[in-house]
């Protein structure tokens, strides 16, 4: 299976596909002092081949570049379409979607671990293909690309993670998901333990994945390492409800006083229904309606490219002025880790 996938997702096919793209001559920088970011919200659509997938990714990158964006972020599980190259898969997928057979919380997914060997075998070629496509697009359009997430195989373990790619098309690093859903645990995915902040010329940026934003600790660590912007890919397999959406990156942005860029996947895949709005978020005091929203998608389903400005100077000022940000209590904090996580009743 792995060899077959390598062949179908081959470097030559990707190179040929990318070679037809005409690079944008003027990347529409208009002399502004802020950073412009784009968050992709996209619907899962069937792809019969890797060229179709590359074309779909390019449509978002091109649009972001035309709007003068410095960085674009793709959603979690940004690879589902590539499974469509398996003969018969798209038909099977349509059947599963009609029957809605898998419910992450229903307990009917007890056989999920059986998928693990298959996922292992296809993960490396899929990772190679996505990263190759994204590197090519980044250099063609001179834009930072966060790839969205996919399975990354390391030391015979599968992780859910993504890569940040420079304007020159180089992979600057990868970040694995630190907190898994029950569904992912049942699949046999392993969580990462290392959290990184990348120092880019557009700011210090971190790339946690989906559930990681449920945990204030991630954003606390990000901020303590000088992070200004957090990019978060999501793929929520549940019906959209605003309060549910508010449990993720939005409150973390308010606590940690960083910008948040959320990219979201939606649509049906193998009987699972994904919904979610892409958006760009900032501390409440920095947004005109005092709601912490710079820009957000109108609808939790469909294709959108959400673009917003990131003003790091204004962020710095907000950190200094906000009543409820910036205090420290060294006496309380010096034993915090031990008291909270190592000697608690939950542990």
């Amino acid at each position, binding site marked *: 299976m792995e060899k077959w996938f390598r062949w179908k997702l081959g470097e030559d096919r990707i190179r040929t596909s990318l070679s037809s793209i005409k690079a944008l001559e003027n990347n529409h920088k208009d002399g502004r002092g802020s950073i412009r970011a784009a968050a992709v919200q996209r619907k899962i659509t069937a792809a019969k081949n890797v060229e179709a997938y590359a074309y779909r990714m390019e449509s978002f990158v091109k649009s972001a570049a035309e709007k003068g964006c410095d960085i674009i972020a793709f959603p979690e599980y940004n690879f589902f379409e590539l499974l469509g190259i398996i003969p018969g898969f798209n038909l099977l997928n349509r059947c599963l979607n009609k029957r809605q057979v898998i419910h992450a919380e229903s307990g009917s997914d007890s056989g999920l671990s059986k998928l693990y060997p298959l996922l292992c075998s296809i993960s490396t070629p899929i990772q190679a293909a996505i990263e190759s496509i994204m590197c090519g697009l980044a250099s063609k359009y001179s834009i930072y690309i966060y790839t969205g997430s996919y399975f990354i195989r390391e030391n015979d373990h599968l992780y859910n993670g993504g890569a940040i790619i420079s304007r020159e098309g180089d992979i600057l690093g990868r970040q694995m998901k630190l907190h898994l859903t029950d569904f992912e645990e049942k699949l046999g995915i392993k969580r990462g333990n290392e959290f990184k902040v990348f120092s880019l010329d557009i700011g210090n940026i971190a790339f946690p994945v989906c559930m990681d934003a449920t945990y204030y600790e991630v954003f606390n660590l990000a901020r303590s390492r000088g992070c200004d912007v957090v990019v978060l890919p999501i793929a929520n397999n549940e019906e959209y409800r605003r309060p549910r959406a508010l449990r993720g990156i939005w409150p973390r942005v308010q606590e940690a006083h960083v910008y948040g860029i959320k990219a979201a996947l939606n649509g049906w895949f193998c009987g699972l229904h994904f919904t979610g709005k892409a958006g760009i978020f900032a501390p409440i005091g920095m947004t005109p309606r005092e709601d912490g929203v710079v820009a957000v998608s109108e609808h939790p389903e469909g294709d959108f490219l959400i673009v917003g400005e990131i003003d790091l100077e204004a962020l710095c000022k907000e950190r200094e002025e906000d009543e409820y940000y910036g205090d420290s209590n060294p006496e309380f904090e010096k034993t*915090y880790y031990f008291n909270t996580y190592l000697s608690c009743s939950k542990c």
Partner: protein
Amino acid sequence: MNAASIVFNNDDYLELTSYEQLAGKVAGWLQLCCEHKIDMVVLPALLGCLFDNGERYINDIIELSNAYKGMAICPGSYFEADYADTYHSSCIIMEGEKIMEQRQIYLAKWEKGLGLSRGTELNSISLRGLKLGIIISTDVFYPQVSRALAMSGVKLVLAPTAIIGSRNMSRQLAGLWQNVQANLFFGMESSFNGSFKGHDFHGSSIIHAPLDMTAGEDGFLALEGKSQKCAIITAELDNEKRKEAVRKFNTLGQLNIEAYKDIFMPSRNGGYHEQPIGKVVPVEAWRRQDKNKP
């Protein structure tokens, strides 16, 4: 357990011109709670320091509490003098006794301006089968406080709050509401509306619970109305329903403790406060660099 949060709006504040009026209002609230068979009530922040130091206020409520057997009362917050230090504090009073005390751990900028000191310990107590703690006002915006309480087994948080600025539900959602969703405990919030030391405060009184156990899946068991007439909002805190909600979405079950080992570590410049902004190359600078590229 029947819970109540006091609704204290701006008109209530404007009516108060003396400590005696406040004491009378508190007595009225407790009587109202008694009529509603309330087991636990939380009052708004800052009530204890509107007219006097907190000592008299607390002593009077301790005295009052003797008349309400079985009712646990969080009297809101007050300033507590301890030698040279003054803390923003709260407590739980029951049947003539102060059974638990808590000092605020973090300070807002206006509180720093008053020279207040920070508490260093979090306390909890078990009542009617639920372990509970107090999160005072500013601490609702420091999620480490909520997490520490949750990890110690607290299932109910009493939060007297005073949120500076105009009424803004987004600000409030960023406070106790999101801490409840992140830690899946109950939260009883009573907000102070009015002025204190030259600052205006606005907020809504809310009884919070995990999304999955609230009727509108919005995390509100009770929320003060826009033209609320009754001085209390009430809700039944059903711990079995809460446990069911936790089974559906168990946030604390997925903590990655290994990944947090540097949190608040001084050697790693821990915490997200008082940190320098990361060095950033101005956008124009890299554009110039970009143009110079072959």
